[in-house]
C-alpha cells in the first residue's frame, strides 16, 4: 500500500506538491498521468526513498521495491546476467541463487545467448528488458515504472508492454504505479488512473470508451503531447 498524506514539496521555492494526498491499495495497478515536469517522477522518488517530502507523510508498506527507470540504468561493467543479479544480491540473495534466478529471467525475457553481453553490446530494447528483469527478479511487492518505454519506437514499446503485461499476470501480489504521459500506454496495464496537475493536485478517474477517454485527457492536460496518434 502507498499513501501520500498532505505532502508538501517545493523545488527552488516553487511548490510542486501542496497538500497532495492519494492512496494506492495493495495489489492495485495504477497509472499516474500528467504533463512533463509536473512532478510524476518525484512521486516515485519519494516512494522509493530517493527524496523526502518537505512536510506531510509518505507511507509505503513494502520491503522490496522494483524500479524500472526511463533509461535502463544498467551497470556498464556488468553483463546482462550480472545486472539482474545486482538487485537480488542487494536484497541479500546469495550469489548462486541470484545467478539461477537471473538466468530464469534471461530466458523469460528472451535474452538467452546475451546473458554474458555487456550493456554496450545490447540494443536499447534488450537493455530495457534487462532492467525489467532486474525489477521483477527481486519479487517486488511494489513496482514503480517511470515512463520506461518513452525512448523506444512504437513496435518495441508494444512488445515490451506485452512482456510487462505477461509478467504482471504471473506476479499478482504486486502494487504497481506506472508513470507516463501516454494514456494509451498506461491503459494497457492500469485499472485506475491518477492525473497529476500543477501544484500537486491529483484527480482520480477510470477510463471510459477509448475515444472519450482520450478526449477527456486532452482537455484536462491541454498539452501537445496528446495529439491523436
Amino acid at each position, binding site marked *: 500500500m502507498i499513501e501520500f498524506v498532505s505532502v508538501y514539496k517545493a523545488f527552488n521555492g516553487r511548490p510542486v506538491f501542496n497538500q497532495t494526498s492519494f492512496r494506492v491499495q495493495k495489489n492495485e495497478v495504477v497509472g499516474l498521468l500528467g504533463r512533463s515536469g509536473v512532478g510524476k517522477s518525484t512521486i516515485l522518488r519519494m516512494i522509493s526513498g530517493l527524496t523526502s517530502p518537505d512536510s506531510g507523510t509518505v507511507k509505503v508498506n513494502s520491503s522490496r521495491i522494483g524500479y524500472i*527507470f526511463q533509461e535502463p*540504468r544498467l551497470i*556498464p561493467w556488468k553483463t546482462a546476467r550480472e545486472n539482474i543479479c*545486482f538487485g537480488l544480491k542487494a*536484497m541479500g540473495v546469495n550469489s548462486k541463487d541470484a545467478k539461477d534466478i537471473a538466468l530464469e529471467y534471461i530466458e523469460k525475457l528472451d535474452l538467452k545467448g546475451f546473458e554474458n553481453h555487456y550493456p*554496450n*553490446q545490447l540494443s536499447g530494447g534488450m537493455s530495457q528488458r534487462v532492467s525489467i528483469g532486474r525489477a521483477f527478479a527481486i519479487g517486488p511487492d511494489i513496482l514503480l515504472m517511470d515512463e520506461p518505454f518513452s525512448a523506444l519506437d512504437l513496435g518495441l514499446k508494444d512488445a515490451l508492454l506485452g512482456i510487462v503485461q505477461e509478467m504482471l499476470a504471473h506476479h499478482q501480489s504486486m502494487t504497481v504505479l506506472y508513470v507516463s504521459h501516454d494514456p494509451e500506454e498506461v491503459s494497457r496495464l492500469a485499472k485506475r488512473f491518477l492525473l497529476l496537475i500543477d501544484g500537486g493536485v491529483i484527480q482520480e478517474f477510470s477510463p471510459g470508451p477509448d475515444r472519450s477517454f482520450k478526449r477527456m485527457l486532452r482537455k484536462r492536460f491541454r498539452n501537445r503531447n496528446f495529439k491523436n496518434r
Partner: protein
Amino acid sequence: MPAVNLLNTKTRYGLMGVCLFFLAWQALSTIFHEIIIASPADTLLSLIEMVQTVDFWKNVGITIGRFGLSLLFGSLVGFVLGLVAGLNKKMRWLFEPFRWSLMTMPPVVLVVVSMIWFGMGSIQTIFVTALLIIPIIYVNTIEGIEAVDASILEMGRVYKANSRMLLKEIYLPGIGGPVLAGLTLSAGLGIRIVVLAELLGAYSGIGYEFSLARTNLDTPALFAWIMVCLFLGGFVDLGILNPIRNHIMRWKAE
C-alpha cells in the same frame, strides 16, 4: 575493415617515428663529438658488453625492486586517500595542501631532503618515489569517483545496496579507468624519479651506474643505460599495465 586499416596506419606511423628517432640520433652523433653524443652503434656495443656482466643484472634488479615497491606503496596510499577524499569533501579540503605541496615541489629537492632523513640507499629512493606517486593516484582516484554515473548510484540505492556493495560493485570498477591512467603516468614518473634518487643518493642501481658512466666520461655506457630505462618503461607500460587495462576495461570493447 576500417579498424584494421587504422591499426595498420597506427603501426606504420609508430615505426616511422622510431626510424626518425634513430636517424636523428645518428645525425646528431655525427655532428657532435662522441663524448657529447654516442652513436646508436656504439651504444648498442656498450649495451651488449654490459648485459654480459653480473653487475648489470644486479643493478637492473635493484632498480626494478625499488621501482616496484615505490609504485606499490605510492599507489596504495594514493588510492586509499583518494577514496576517502573522493567520498568525503571535508577530507578532500583537508588533504588539499598536502596534494598541492607534493605536486609543486621539485623532485630533486625531495631527494636532497630525504637523503638527510634516511641517508644514502634504498629507503630514501623508495620514499621519494612513492611520495611523488601518491598525488597522481590520489587525483585520478578522486576524478574516477566524480565520474561515477550518479544515475547508477541512484539505482543502487533504490535496490537497497549497502555502502559496501556500492563501493565494491559501482565505485571501485567505475574508477578503474582513471586509476589505470594514473598508474601509467606514475610508472613513467616512477622510473625517472628512482633513477634520479639513485643518481644522487645511492651506491647501487641504474642511477648509480649513470653517475659512474658520467664520472668516467663513458658516453656510450650512459646512452646504453638510457636505452635500458626506455626498455624498462616500455615493458612496464606495454607488458604489464596494458594487459591489465585491457582486462579491466574489457566491458568497453564493442
